[in-house]
Protein backbone atom coordinates (compact mmCIF):
# COMPACT_ATOMS: atom_id res chain seq x y z
CA UNK A 1 0.00 0.00 0.00
CA UNK A 2 2.71 2.40 0.97
CA UNK A 3 4.34 1.84 -2.34
CA UNK A 4 1.30 3.06 -4.11
CA UNK A 5 1.03 6.34 -2.25
CA UNK A 6 4.71 7.00 -2.54
CA UNK A 7 4.79 6.27 -6.19
CA UNK A 8 5.31 9.50 -8.12
CA UNK A 9 2.08 10.82 -9.60
CA UNK A 10 1.87 11.37 -13.28
CA UNK A 11 2.40 15.06 -13.65
CA UNK A 12 0.14 17.30 -15.66
CA UNK A 13 1.66 19.13 -18.55
CA UNK A 14 2.00 22.52 -16.88
CA UNK A 15 3.40 20.96 -13.70
CA UNK A 16 6.12 19.34 -15.70
CA UNK A 17 6.79 22.67 -17.30
CA UNK A 18 6.94 24.77 -14.16
CA UNK A 19 7.68 22.22 -11.53
CA UNK A 20 4.68 23.31 -9.40
CA UNK A 21 2.15 21.29 -7.43
CA UNK A 22 -1.39 21.36 -8.78
CA UNK A 23 -2.67 23.32 -5.81
CA UNK A 24 -0.12 26.01 -6.35
CA UNK A 25 -1.04 26.20 -10.01
CA UNK A 26 -4.67 26.69 -9.07
CA UNK A 27 -3.76 29.44 -6.63
CA UNK A 28 -1.65 31.16 -9.24
CA UNK A 29 -4.40 30.99 -11.78
CA UNK A 30 -6.85 32.44 -9.30
CA UNK A 31 -4.46 35.29 -8.48
CA UNK A 32 -4.04 36.06 -12.16
CA UNK A 33 -7.77 36.82 -12.62
CA UNK A 34 -8.93 40.10 -11.19
CA UNK A 35 -11.64 40.39 -8.55
CA UNK A 36 -14.05 41.55 -11.19
CA UNK A 37 -13.48 38.53 -13.37
CA UNK A 38 -13.76 36.26 -10.37
CA UNK A 39 -17.16 37.62 -9.44
CA UNK A 40 -18.19 37.26 -13.07
CA UNK A 41 -17.15 33.63 -13.11
CA UNK A 42 -18.91 32.97 -9.84
CA UNK A 43 -22.12 34.57 -11.07
CA UNK A 44 -21.91 32.68 -14.32
CA UNK A 45 -21.50 29.37 -12.51
CA UNK A 46 -24.50 30.18 -10.32
CA UNK A 47 -26.61 31.24 -13.28
CA UNK A 48 -25.67 28.06 -15.12
CA UNK A 49 -27.00 26.03 -12.22
CA UNK A 50 -30.19 27.96 -11.49
CA UNK A 51 -31.28 28.89 -15.01
CA UNK A 52 -32.16 25.40 -16.30
CA UNK A 53 -34.51 25.00 -13.37
CA UNK A 54 -36.25 28.31 -14.08
CA UNK A 55 -36.35 27.53 -17.77
CA UNK A 56 -38.06 24.23 -17.10
CA UNK A 57 -40.63 25.90 -14.85
CA UNK A 58 -41.40 28.60 -17.42
CA UNK A 59 -41.59 26.22 -20.36
CA UNK A 60 -43.74 23.67 -18.59
CA UNK A 61 -46.05 26.36 -17.23
CA UNK A 62 -46.59 28.10 -20.56
CA UNK A 63 -46.68 24.78 -22.37
CA UNK A 64 -49.58 23.89 -20.12
CA UNK A 65 -51.39 27.10 -21.07
CA UNK A 66 -51.04 26.11 -24.72
CA UNK A 67 -51.94 22.47 -24.24
CA UNK A 68 -54.82 23.21 -21.88
CA UNK A 69 -57.55 23.55 -24.54
CA UNK A 70 -56.34 20.42 -26.29
CA UNK A 71 -56.32 18.40 -23.11
CA UNK A 72 -59.73 19.81 -22.28
CA UNK A 73 -60.99 18.85 -25.74
CA UNK A 74 -59.82 15.27 -25.40
CA UNK A 75 -61.20 15.07 -21.90
CA UNK A 76 -64.61 16.39 -22.95
CA UNK A 77 -64.97 14.53 -26.22
CA UNK A 78 -64.83 11.10 -24.63
CA UNK A 79 -67.08 11.67 -21.67
CA UNK A 80 -70.74 11.14 -21.16
CA UNK A 81 -73.02 14.17 -21.27
CA UNK A 82 -74.00 13.62 -17.64
CA UNK A 83 -70.41 14.10 -16.54
CA UNK A 84 -70.55 17.73 -17.64
CA UNK A 85 -72.84 18.66 -14.76
CA UNK A 86 -71.12 16.38 -12.27
CA UNK A 87 -69.07 18.73 -10.07
CA UNK A 88 -66.62 15.99 -9.12
CA UNK A 89 -65.51 15.58 -12.72
CA UNK A 90 -62.81 18.03 -13.67
CA UNK A 91 -60.45 16.27 -16.05
CA UNK A 92 -60.98 12.56 -15.83
CA UNK A 93 -64.45 11.51 -16.92
CA UNK A 94 -66.47 9.06 -14.90
CA UNK A 95 -68.15 7.43 -17.87
CA UNK A 96 -66.07 6.93 -20.99
CA UNK A 97 -67.93 6.86 -24.25
CA UNK A 98 -67.32 7.06 -27.96
CA UNK A 99 -70.89 7.99 -28.55
CA UNK A 100 -70.35 11.75 -28.58
CA UNK A 101 -67.65 11.42 -31.21
CA UNK A 102 -69.85 9.15 -33.28
CA UNK A 103 -72.78 11.57 -33.02
CA UNK A 104 -70.61 14.50 -33.99
CA UNK A 105 -69.19 12.63 -36.98
CA UNK A 106 -72.77 12.01 -37.99
CA UNK A 107 -73.91 15.59 -37.49
CA UNK A 108 -70.96 17.06 -39.36
CA UNK A 109 -71.24 14.51 -42.15
CA UNK A 110 -67.59 14.24 -41.33
CA UNK A 111 -66.07 12.02 -44.01
CA UNK A 112 -67.77 13.75 -46.90
CA UNK A 113 -67.01 17.16 -45.47
CA UNK A 114 -63.42 16.16 -44.88
CA UNK A 115 -63.09 15.01 -48.49
CA UNK A 116 -64.59 18.27 -49.76
CA UNK A 117 -62.34 20.37 -47.58
CA UNK A 118 -59.18 18.49 -48.43
CA UNK A 119 -59.88 18.69 -52.14
CA UNK A 120 -60.63 22.40 -51.98
CA UNK A 121 -57.77 23.27 -49.64
CA UNK A 122 -55.03 21.29 -51.28
CA UNK A 123 -56.15 22.30 -54.76
CA UNK A 124 -56.35 26.00 -53.94
CA UNK A 125 -53.09 25.95 -52.01
CA UNK A 126 -51.21 24.22 -54.81
CA UNK A 127 -52.46 26.65 -57.42
CA UNK A 128 -51.94 29.65 -55.19
CA UNK A 129 -48.38 28.72 -54.21
CA UNK A 130 -47.36 28.59 -57.85
CA UNK A 131 -49.15 31.76 -58.89
CA UNK A 132 -47.68 33.62 -55.92
CA UNK A 133 -44.21 32.25 -56.63
CA UNK A 134 -44.38 33.48 -60.23
CA UNK A 135 -45.58 36.90 -59.12
CA UNK A 136 -43.00 37.13 -56.36
CA UNK A 137 -40.27 36.25 -58.84
CA UNK A 138 -41.47 38.94 -61.22
CA UNK A 139 -41.28 41.54 -58.47
CA UNK A 140 -37.94 40.29 -57.18
CA UNK A 141 -35.93 40.17 -60.39
CA UNK A 142 -37.41 42.51 -62.97
CA UNK A 143 -37.51 46.25 -63.04
CA UNK A 144 -40.38 47.59 -65.07
CA UNK A 145 -42.43 50.71 -65.23
CA UNK A 146 -44.76 50.96 -62.29
CA UNK A 147 -43.25 48.00 -60.44
CA UNK A 148 -42.98 50.04 -57.25
CA UNK A 149 -46.59 51.13 -57.50
CA UNK A 150 -47.79 47.61 -58.22
CA UNK A 151 -45.84 46.28 -55.29
CA UNK A 152 -47.63 48.90 -53.23
CA UNK A 153 -50.84 47.16 -54.31
CA UNK A 154 -49.41 43.89 -52.95
CA UNK A 155 -48.80 45.59 -49.61
CA UNK A 156 -52.38 46.89 -49.75
CA UNK A 157 -53.54 43.30 -50.20
CA UNK A 158 -51.88 42.44 -46.91
CA UNK A 159 -53.41 45.42 -45.14
CA UNK A 160 -56.98 45.41 -46.38
CA UNK A 161 -59.12 43.13 -44.23
CA UNK A 162 -61.25 40.73 -46.31
CA UNK A 163 -64.36 42.22 -44.70
CA UNK A 164 -63.85 45.44 -46.63
CA UNK A 165 -64.17 43.85 -50.04
CA UNK A 166 -66.32 40.80 -49.35
CA UNK A 167 -69.64 42.39 -50.35
CA UNK A 168 -68.58 43.73 -53.77
CA UNK A 169 -66.74 40.48 -54.30
CA UNK A 170 -69.97 38.64 -53.65
CA UNK A 171 -71.79 40.59 -56.37
CA UNK A 172 -68.76 40.06 -58.59
CA UNK A 173 -69.16 36.31 -58.34
CA UNK A 174 -72.94 36.38 -58.36
CA UNK A 175 -72.94 38.04 -61.77
CA UNK A 176 -69.61 36.89 -63.13
CA UNK A 177 -68.98 37.86 -66.73
CA UNK A 178 -69.08 40.87 -69.00
CA UNK A 179 -71.80 43.38 -68.35
CA UNK A 180 -74.89 43.02 -70.55
CA UNK A 181 -73.24 40.25 -72.53
CA UNK A 182 -73.32 37.20 -70.34
CA UNK A 183 -73.08 36.44 -66.68
CA UNK A 184 -72.91 33.27 -64.64
CA UNK A 185 -73.70 32.64 -61.04
CA UNK A 186 -70.55 31.32 -59.41
CA UNK A 187 -71.82 31.38 -55.85
CA UNK A 188 -71.53 27.92 -54.25
CA UNK A 189 -69.15 26.69 -56.91
CA UNK A 190 -65.57 25.88 -56.06
CA UNK A 191 -64.50 28.45 -58.64
CA UNK A 192 -65.07 31.24 -56.11
CA UNK A 193 -62.04 29.83 -54.32
CA UNK A 194 -60.08 28.54 -57.31
CA UNK A 195 -60.23 31.66 -59.48
CA UNK A 196 -58.65 33.99 -56.92
CA UNK A 197 -56.15 31.31 -55.96
CA UNK A 198 -55.16 30.82 -59.60
CA UNK A 199 -54.53 34.52 -60.02
CA UNK A 200 -52.61 34.94 -56.76
CA UNK A 201 -55.47 36.67 -54.98
CA UNK A 202 -56.67 33.99 -52.57
CA UNK A 203 -56.46 33.93 -48.82
CA UNK A 204 -53.40 35.81 -47.56
CA UNK A 205 -51.98 35.89 -51.08
CA UNK A 206 -50.38 39.28 -50.43
CA UNK A 207 -48.29 37.85 -47.65
CA UNK A 208 -47.26 34.91 -49.81
CA UNK A 209 -46.20 37.13 -52.70
CA UNK A 210 -44.19 39.19 -50.25
CA UNK A 211 -42.48 36.08 -48.84
CA UNK A 212 -41.59 34.78 -52.30
CA UNK A 213 -40.25 38.16 -53.37
CA UNK A 214 -37.95 38.24 -50.35
CA UNK A 215 -36.92 34.67 -51.02
CA UNK A 216 -36.06 35.13 -54.68
CA UNK A 217 -34.22 38.35 -53.94
CA UNK A 218 -31.96 36.40 -51.63
CA UNK A 219 -31.02 33.82 -54.26
CA UNK A 220 -27.73 34.27 -56.12
CA UNK A 221 -28.00 35.84 -59.57
CA UNK A 222 -25.31 33.51 -60.93
CA UNK A 223 -27.90 30.76 -61.15
CA UNK A 224 -29.91 32.69 -63.70
CA UNK A 225 -26.91 34.07 -65.51
CA UNK A 226 -25.71 30.53 -66.13
CA UNK A 227 -29.11 29.56 -67.49
CA UNK A 228 -29.27 32.63 -69.74
CA UNK A 229 -25.85 31.85 -71.18
CA UNK A 230 -27.07 28.35 -71.95
CA UNK A 231 -29.86 29.93 -73.96
CA UNK A 232 -32.82 29.66 -71.62
CA UNK A 233 -35.50 32.33 -71.74
CA UNK A 234 -36.65 33.93 -68.49
CA UNK A 235 -39.69 31.67 -68.19
CA UNK A 236 -37.77 28.48 -68.77
CA UNK A 237 -35.11 29.69 -66.36
CA UNK A 238 -37.77 30.20 -63.75
CA UNK A 239 -39.31 26.77 -64.24
CA UNK A 240 -36.12 24.79 -64.71
CA UNK A 241 -33.67 26.57 -62.41
CA UNK A 242 -35.40 28.74 -59.85
CA UNK A 243 -38.36 26.59 -58.87
CA UNK A 244 -36.32 23.46 -58.08
CA UNK A 245 -34.03 25.58 -55.93
CA UNK A 246 -36.99 27.02 -54.12
CA UNK A 247 -38.58 23.68 -53.28
CA UNK A 248 -38.11 24.01 -49.51
CA UNK A 249 -39.70 27.45 -49.48
CA UNK A 250 -42.49 26.22 -51.72
CA UNK A 251 -43.27 23.40 -49.34
CA UNK A 252 -43.33 25.66 -46.28
CA UNK A 253 -45.57 28.23 -47.90
CA UNK A 254 -47.78 25.43 -49.19
CA UNK A 255 -48.21 24.03 -45.69
CA UNK A 256 -49.09 27.41 -44.26
CA UNK A 257 -51.48 27.98 -47.10
CA UNK A 258 -53.26 24.69 -46.37
CA UNK A 259 -53.60 25.73 -42.75
CA UNK A 260 -54.96 29.16 -43.68
CA UNK A 261 -57.49 27.70 -46.07
CA UNK A 262 -58.39 25.11 -43.48
CA UNK A 263 -59.05 27.72 -40.84
CA UNK A 264 -60.88 30.14 -43.07
CA UNK A 265 -64.56 30.50 -42.45
CA UNK A 266 -65.11 34.15 -43.29
CA UNK A 267 -64.45 33.92 -47.02
CA UNK A 268 -66.05 30.53 -47.42
CA UNK A 269 -69.15 31.51 -45.46
CA UNK A 270 -69.55 34.49 -47.79
CA UNK A 271 -69.46 32.45 -50.98
CA UNK A 272 -70.79 29.07 -49.94
CA UNK A 273 -74.34 28.53 -48.88
CA UNK A 274 -74.46 24.76 -49.06
CA UNK A 275 -70.96 23.58 -49.89
CA UNK A 276 -69.69 21.89 -46.81
CA UNK A 277 -66.26 22.59 -45.40
CA UNK A 278 -64.98 21.63 -41.99
CA UNK A 279 -64.76 25.20 -40.72
CA UNK A 280 -68.31 26.01 -41.82
CA UNK A 281 -69.71 22.83 -40.34
CA UNK A 282 -68.01 23.55 -37.07
CA UNK A 283 -69.46 27.06 -36.84
CA UNK A 284 -72.92 25.66 -37.61
CA UNK A 285 -72.53 22.66 -35.36
CA UNK A 286 -75.33 23.84 -33.04
CA UNK A 287 -77.93 23.73 -35.77
CA UNK A 288 -76.65 20.54 -37.33
CA UNK A 289 -76.80 18.85 -33.96
CA UNK A 290 -80.35 19.96 -33.37
CA UNK A 291 -81.41 18.77 -36.80
CA UNK A 292 -79.59 15.46 -36.84
CA UNK A 293 -79.63 14.39 -33.25
CA UNK A 294 -83.01 15.53 -32.04
CA UNK A 295 -84.86 16.02 -35.32
CA UNK A 296 -86.15 19.25 -33.89
CA UNK A 297 -84.67 22.67 -34.68
CA UNK A 298 -86.33 24.26 -31.65
CA UNK A 299 -84.92 21.96 -29.01
CA UNK A 300 -82.89 23.72 -26.32
CA UNK A 301 -79.67 22.15 -25.20
CA UNK A 302 -78.05 23.85 -22.25
CA UNK A 303 -74.71 25.45 -23.14
CA UNK A 304 -72.98 23.27 -20.59
CA UNK A 305 -74.27 20.13 -22.23
CA UNK A 306 -73.37 21.39 -25.68
CA UNK A 307 -69.73 21.52 -24.69
CA UNK A 308 -69.19 17.80 -25.16
CA UNK A 309 -70.27 17.97 -28.79
CA UNK A 310 -68.51 21.22 -29.48
CA UNK A 311 -65.26 19.94 -28.08
CA UNK A 312 -65.68 16.72 -30.04
CA UNK A 313 -66.28 18.82 -33.16
CA UNK A 314 -63.17 20.87 -32.44
CA UNK A 315 -61.13 17.74 -31.96
CA UNK A 316 -62.41 16.27 -35.22
CA UNK A 317 -61.77 19.42 -37.18
CA UNK A 318 -58.22 20.01 -36.03
CA UNK A 319 -57.22 16.35 -36.07
CA UNK A 320 -56.16 16.35 -39.76
CA UNK A 321 -54.02 19.48 -39.48
CA UNK A 322 -52.67 18.27 -36.18
CA UNK A 323 -51.57 15.01 -37.76
CA UNK A 324 -50.03 16.92 -40.64
CA UNK A 325 -48.24 19.16 -38.14
CA UNK A 326 -46.84 16.24 -36.17
CA UNK A 327 -45.33 14.66 -39.26
CA UNK A 328 -44.19 17.80 -41.04
CA UNK A 329 -43.28 19.88 -38.00
CA UNK A 330 -39.75 20.39 -39.26
CA UNK A 331 -40.97 22.06 -42.45
CA UNK A 332 -43.27 24.38 -40.59
CA UNK A 333 -40.66 25.70 -38.25
CA UNK A 334 -37.36 25.35 -40.03
CA UNK A 335 -38.68 26.11 -43.47
CA UNK A 336 -39.45 29.69 -42.54
CA UNK A 337 -35.83 30.30 -41.75
CA UNK A 338 -34.83 29.02 -45.15
CA UNK A 339 -37.71 30.61 -47.00
CA UNK A 340 -35.90 33.90 -46.79
CA UNK A 341 -38.51 35.95 -44.99
CA UNK A 342 -35.51 36.54 -42.76
CA UNK A 343 -33.49 38.59 -45.18
Amino acid at each position, binding site marked *: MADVTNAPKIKKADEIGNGMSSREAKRRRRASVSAEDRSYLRRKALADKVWPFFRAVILIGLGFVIMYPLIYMISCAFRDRADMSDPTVMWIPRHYTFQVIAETIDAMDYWKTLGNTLLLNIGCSLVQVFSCAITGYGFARFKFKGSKLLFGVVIMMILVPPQVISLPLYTQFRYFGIRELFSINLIDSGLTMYLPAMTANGIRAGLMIYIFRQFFKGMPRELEDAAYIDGCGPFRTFVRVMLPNASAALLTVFLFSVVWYWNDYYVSSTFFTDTKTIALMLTNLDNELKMNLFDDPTVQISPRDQIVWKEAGCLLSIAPVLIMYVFLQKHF*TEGIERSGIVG
Partner: protein
Amino acid sequence: MYGYGFISLWLIGTVLFFLIPLGKSLWYSFCNVSVDPGSLNTEFKGMDNYFSVLSEDPYYTEYLGDVLLETLWKTPLILIFSLFIAVVLNQKFRGRTLARAIFFLPVIIATGPVFRIINGDMDSTGNAGAEQFSTMFSTDLVGELMQFLGIYGISDSVSNFISAVADNIFGIVWNSGIQIILFLAALQNIPSSAREAAQMEGATAWEYFWKITFPYVSPFILANLIFTVIDSFTNPMNSVMNRISAMRSQFDFGEASAMAWIYFVVVIIAIGLITAVMNRFIYYENN
Protein backbone atom coordinates in the same frame (compact mmCIF):
# COMPACT_ATOMS: atom_id res chain seq x y z
CA MET B 1 -40.87 43.54 -70.39
CA TYR B 2 -40.61 40.02 -68.98
CA GLY B 3 -41.54 41.50 -65.61
CA TYR B 4 -45.05 42.17 -66.89
CA GLY B 5 -45.19 38.60 -68.15
CA PHE B 6 -44.44 37.22 -64.72
CA ILE B 7 -46.91 39.39 -62.90
CA SER B 8 -49.64 39.38 -65.56
CA LEU B 9 -51.58 36.56 -63.94
CA TRP B 10 -51.60 38.37 -60.63
CA LEU B 11 -52.43 41.66 -62.31
CA ILE B 12 -55.59 40.26 -63.91
CA GLY B 13 -56.65 38.69 -60.63
CA THR B 14 -55.95 41.80 -58.62
CA VAL B 15 -57.95 44.02 -60.90
CA LEU B 16 -60.86 41.57 -60.87
CA PHE B 17 -60.85 40.37 -57.30
CA PHE B 18 -59.20 43.18 -55.39
CA LEU B 19 -59.10 46.61 -57.01
CA ILE B 20 -62.61 46.64 -58.49
CA PRO B 21 -64.25 45.39 -55.28
CA LEU B 22 -62.14 47.84 -53.30
CA GLY B 23 -63.24 50.71 -55.50
CA LYS B 24 -66.84 49.56 -55.34
CA SER B 25 -66.79 49.44 -51.58
CA LEU B 26 -65.34 52.96 -51.50
CA TRP B 27 -68.16 54.06 -53.80
CA TYR B 28 -70.78 52.35 -51.63
CA SER B 29 -69.47 54.21 -48.61
CA PHE B 30 -70.56 57.49 -50.26
CA CYS B 31 -73.93 56.12 -51.29
CA ASN B 32 -77.29 55.11 -50.08
CA VAL B 33 -77.33 51.46 -51.06
CA SER B 34 -80.58 49.59 -51.43
CA VAL B 35 -80.95 45.96 -52.39
CA ASP B 36 -83.48 44.91 -54.97
CA PRO B 37 -83.77 41.38 -56.22
CA GLY B 38 -81.16 41.07 -58.92
CA SER B 39 -79.41 44.37 -58.43
CA LEU B 40 -77.88 46.84 -56.05
CA ASN B 41 -79.09 50.41 -56.35
CA THR B 42 -76.78 53.18 -55.35
CA GLU B 43 -77.64 56.80 -54.83
CA PHE B 44 -74.86 59.26 -54.16
CA LYS B 45 -75.17 61.20 -50.95
CA GLY B 46 -71.67 62.40 -50.16
CA MET B 47 -70.14 62.08 -46.73
CA ASP B 48 -73.44 61.37 -44.96
CA ASN B 49 -72.57 57.78 -44.12
CA TYR B 50 -69.33 58.81 -42.52
CA PHE B 51 -70.99 61.46 -40.39
CA SER B 52 -73.75 59.18 -39.25
CA VAL B 53 -71.34 56.37 -38.42
CA LEU B 54 -69.10 58.61 -36.37
CA SER B 55 -71.75 60.65 -34.59
CA GLU B 56 -74.89 58.55 -34.49
CA ASP B 57 -73.95 54.89 -34.39
CA PRO B 58 -74.15 53.92 -30.71
CA TYR B 59 -71.36 51.37 -30.77
CA TYR B 60 -68.92 52.11 -33.52
CA THR B 61 -66.68 54.78 -31.99
CA GLU B 62 -66.66 52.96 -28.68
CA TYR B 63 -65.61 49.70 -30.32
CA LEU B 64 -63.00 51.51 -32.37
CA GLY B 65 -61.50 52.93 -29.18
CA ASP B 66 -61.58 49.50 -27.55
CA VAL B 67 -59.77 47.83 -30.42
CA LEU B 68 -57.12 50.56 -30.57
CA LEU B 69 -56.56 50.40 -26.83
CA GLU B 70 -56.36 46.64 -26.80
CA THR B 71 -53.89 46.61 -29.68
CA LEU B 72 -51.86 49.28 -27.92
CA TRP B 73 -51.28 47.31 -24.74
CA LYS B 74 -51.32 43.78 -26.13
CA THR B 75 -48.79 44.30 -28.91
CA PRO B 76 -45.81 45.18 -26.69
CA LEU B 77 -46.64 42.28 -24.39
CA ILE B 78 -46.83 39.84 -27.30
CA LEU B 79 -43.51 41.11 -28.66
CA ILE B 80 -41.69 40.93 -25.32
CA PHE B 81 -43.13 37.53 -24.61
CA SER B 82 -42.29 36.07 -28.01
CA LEU B 83 -38.75 37.46 -27.97
CA PHE B 84 -38.21 35.96 -24.53
CA ILE B 85 -39.56 32.58 -25.57
CA ALA B 86 -37.51 32.66 -28.77
CA VAL B 87 -34.32 33.32 -26.76
CA VAL B 88 -35.18 30.44 -24.45
CA LEU B 89 -36.04 28.07 -27.29
CA ASN B 90 -32.79 28.98 -29.02
CA GLN B 91 -30.77 27.54 -26.13
CA LYS B 92 -29.65 23.96 -26.09
CA PHE B 93 -31.47 21.70 -23.68
CA ARG B 94 -33.12 18.32 -23.61
CA GLY B 95 -36.62 18.23 -25.05
CA ARG B 96 -36.10 21.34 -27.13
CA THR B 97 -37.78 19.88 -30.21
CA LEU B 98 -40.86 19.02 -28.18
CA ALA B 99 -40.93 22.47 -26.56
CA ARG B 100 -40.70 24.12 -29.97
CA ALA B 101 -43.44 21.94 -31.37
CA ILE B 102 -45.73 22.93 -28.50
CA PHE B 103 -45.01 26.63 -28.73
CA PHE B 104 -45.61 26.72 -32.48
CA LEU B 105 -48.84 24.78 -32.16
CA PRO B 106 -51.01 27.94 -31.91
CA VAL B 107 -49.86 28.85 -35.42
CA ILE B 108 -52.00 26.13 -36.91
CA ILE B 109 -55.02 26.60 -34.67
CA ALA B 110 -55.28 30.23 -33.60
CA THR B 111 -56.67 31.60 -36.87
CA GLY B 112 -59.64 29.30 -37.14
CA PRO B 113 -63.10 28.73 -35.75
CA VAL B 114 -61.73 26.15 -33.34
CA PHE B 115 -60.01 28.92 -31.46
CA ARG B 116 -63.25 30.83 -31.28
CA ILE B 117 -64.98 27.86 -29.72
CA ILE B 118 -62.09 27.26 -27.34
CA ASN B 119 -62.37 30.86 -26.23
CA GLY B 120 -66.16 30.81 -26.05
CA ASP B 121 -66.41 27.58 -24.13
CA MET B 122 -63.90 28.70 -21.64
CA ASP B 123 -65.93 31.80 -21.03
CA SER B 124 -69.20 29.91 -20.67
CA THR B 125 -67.77 27.47 -18.16
CA GLY B 126 -66.00 30.20 -16.26
CA ASN B 127 -62.63 28.95 -17.40
CA ALA B 128 -60.80 31.84 -18.96
CA GLY B 129 -57.38 33.25 -18.45
CA ALA B 130 -56.09 33.48 -14.93
CA GLU B 131 -59.48 32.73 -13.43
CA GLN B 132 -59.34 29.31 -14.93
CA PHE B 133 -56.22 28.46 -13.02
CA SER B 134 -57.51 30.16 -9.94
CA THR B 135 -60.76 28.24 -9.87
CA MET B 136 -58.78 25.06 -10.16
CA PHE B 137 -57.27 25.82 -6.81
CA SER B 138 -60.34 27.73 -5.68
CA THR B 139 -58.49 30.87 -4.69
CA ASP B 140 -57.67 34.11 -6.40
CA LEU B 141 -54.09 33.16 -7.11
CA VAL B 142 -53.08 36.34 -8.86
CA GLY B 143 -54.45 38.46 -6.05
CA GLU B 144 -52.71 36.32 -3.45
CA LEU B 145 -49.45 36.57 -5.29
CA MET B 146 -49.68 40.33 -5.51
CA GLN B 147 -50.54 40.52 -1.85
CA PHE B 148 -47.54 38.36 -1.11
CA LEU B 149 -45.25 40.60 -3.12
CA GLY B 150 -46.71 43.61 -1.39
CA ILE B 151 -47.83 45.34 -4.56
CA TYR B 152 -51.53 44.86 -4.14
CA GLY B 153 -52.13 48.14 -2.39
CA ILE B 154 -49.72 50.36 -4.32
CA SER B 155 -52.16 51.65 -6.82
CA ASP B 156 -55.36 50.40 -8.30
CA SER B 157 -54.32 50.99 -11.87
CA VAL B 158 -51.10 49.00 -11.47
CA SER B 159 -52.82 46.04 -9.88
CA ASN B 160 -55.62 46.26 -12.40
CA PHE B 161 -53.06 46.17 -15.17
CA ILE B 162 -51.32 43.17 -13.67
CA SER B 163 -54.52 41.20 -13.31
CA ALA B 164 -55.52 42.20 -16.83
CA VAL B 165 -52.23 40.76 -18.09
CA ALA B 166 -52.68 37.62 -16.04
CA ASP B 167 -56.24 37.24 -17.29
CA ASN B 168 -55.04 37.57 -20.85
CA ILE B 169 -52.02 35.34 -20.63
CA PHE B 170 -53.98 32.82 -22.64
CA GLY B 171 -54.61 35.27 -25.45
CA ILE B 172 -51.01 36.45 -25.44
CA VAL B 173 -49.48 32.99 -25.52
CA TRP B 174 -51.88 31.86 -28.21
CA ASN B 175 -51.20 34.87 -30.43
CA SER B 176 -47.42 34.63 -30.36
CA GLY B 177 -46.75 31.61 -32.55
CA ILE B 178 -45.63 33.30 -35.76
CA GLN B 179 -43.73 35.95 -33.83
CA ILE B 180 -41.74 33.30 -31.98
CA ILE B 181 -40.87 31.59 -35.28
CA LEU B 182 -39.67 34.86 -36.81
CA PHE B 183 -37.60 35.83 -33.78
CA LEU B 184 -36.09 32.38 -33.63
CA ALA B 185 -35.10 32.64 -37.28
CA ALA B 186 -33.51 36.03 -36.52
CA LEU B 187 -31.62 34.65 -33.53
CA GLN B 188 -30.17 31.86 -35.62
CA ASN B 189 -28.85 34.44 -38.04
CA ILE B 190 -26.62 36.06 -35.43
CA PRO B 191 -23.08 35.26 -36.58
CA SER B 192 -21.16 33.02 -34.22
CA SER B 193 -18.22 35.47 -34.37
CA ALA B 194 -20.34 37.99 -32.44
CA ARG B 195 -21.10 35.41 -29.78
CA GLU B 196 -17.47 34.39 -29.47
CA ALA B 197 -16.33 37.99 -29.19
CA ALA B 198 -18.84 38.60 -26.41
CA GLN B 199 -17.61 35.53 -24.58
CA MET B 200 -13.99 36.63 -24.87
CA GLU B 201 -14.88 39.99 -23.40
CA GLY B 202 -16.72 38.33 -20.55
CA ALA B 203 -20.19 39.62 -21.24
CA THR B 204 -22.93 38.45 -18.90
CA ALA B 205 -26.07 36.97 -20.36
CA TRP B 206 -27.85 40.25 -19.63
CA GLU B 207 -25.22 42.34 -21.43
CA TYR B 208 -25.13 39.84 -24.26
CA PHE B 209 -28.84 40.22 -24.74
CA TRP B 210 -28.79 44.01 -24.90
CA LYS B 211 -25.53 44.48 -26.81
CA ILE B 212 -25.67 41.58 -29.27
CA THR B 213 -29.06 39.94 -29.46
CA PHE B 214 -31.18 43.05 -29.37
CA PRO B 215 -29.46 44.99 -32.18
CA TYR B 216 -29.44 41.92 -34.40
CA VAL B 217 -33.12 41.18 -33.99
CA SER B 218 -34.27 44.81 -34.11
CA PRO B 219 -35.34 44.68 -37.80
CA PHE B 220 -37.51 41.74 -36.84
CA ILE B 221 -39.02 43.64 -34.00
CA LEU B 222 -40.41 46.02 -36.60
CA ALA B 223 -41.57 43.19 -38.85
CA ASN B 224 -43.19 41.43 -35.90
CA LEU B 225 -44.70 44.65 -34.62
CA ILE B 226 -46.38 45.31 -37.94
CA PHE B 227 -47.49 41.70 -38.23
CA THR B 228 -48.94 41.77 -34.71
CA VAL B 229 -50.76 45.04 -35.31
CA ILE B 230 -52.25 43.83 -38.61
CA ASP B 231 -53.17 40.52 -37.04
CA SER B 232 -54.95 42.24 -34.20
CA PHE B 233 -56.75 44.75 -36.44
CA THR B 234 -57.90 42.20 -38.99
CA ASN B 235 -58.88 39.58 -36.45
CA PRO B 236 -62.44 38.58 -37.36
CA MET B 237 -63.17 38.26 -33.67
CA ASN B 238 -62.57 41.89 -32.75
CA SER B 239 -65.54 44.07 -31.97
CA VAL B 240 -65.23 46.51 -34.90
CA MET B 241 -65.18 43.61 -37.35
CA ASN B 242 -68.22 42.12 -35.68
CA ARG B 243 -70.02 45.45 -35.85
CA ILE B 244 -69.24 45.76 -39.57
CA SER B 245 -70.52 42.24 -40.22
CA ALA B 246 -73.64 42.97 -38.17
CA MET B 247 -74.38 46.12 -40.20
CA ARG B 248 -73.89 44.14 -43.36
CA SER B 249 -76.32 41.45 -42.33
CA GLN B 250 -78.87 44.22 -41.76
CA PHE B 251 -78.28 45.20 -45.42
CA ASP B 252 -76.89 48.58 -44.35
CA PHE B 253 -74.21 48.31 -47.00
CA GLY B 254 -73.49 52.00 -47.26
CA GLU B 255 -72.82 52.44 -43.57
CA ALA B 256 -70.99 49.13 -43.34
CA SER B 257 -68.61 50.26 -46.09
CA ALA B 258 -68.12 53.62 -44.43
CA MET B 259 -67.24 51.85 -41.19
CA ALA B 260 -64.83 49.57 -42.98
CA TRP B 261 -63.12 52.49 -44.67
CA ILE B 262 -62.77 54.57 -41.51
CA TYR B 263 -61.31 51.53 -39.84
CA PHE B 264 -58.97 50.90 -42.73
CA VAL B 265 -57.69 54.49 -42.68
CA VAL B 266 -57.08 54.24 -38.94
CA VAL B 267 -55.11 51.03 -39.47
CA ILE B 268 -52.99 52.59 -42.22
CA ILE B 269 -52.24 55.64 -40.08
CA ALA B 270 -51.33 53.47 -37.10
CA ILE B 271 -48.98 51.32 -39.16
CA GLY B 272 -47.44 54.35 -40.85
CA LEU B 273 -46.74 55.95 -37.48
CA ILE B 274 -45.23 52.78 -36.08
CA THR B 275 -42.95 52.32 -39.07
CA ALA B 276 -41.81 55.95 -38.99
CA VAL B 277 -41.03 55.85 -35.27
CA MET B 278 -39.42 52.42 -35.24
CA ASN B 279 -37.20 53.06 -38.24
CA ARG B 280 -35.21 55.55 -36.21
CA PHE B 281 -34.25 52.93 -33.63
CA ILE B 282 -33.43 50.02 -35.85
CA TYR B 283 -29.96 48.75 -36.51
CA TYR B 284 -29.35 47.47 -40.00
CA GLU B 285 -26.14 45.54 -40.38
CA ASN B 286 -25.60 46.50 -43.99
CA ASN B 287 -25.95 50.25 -43.58
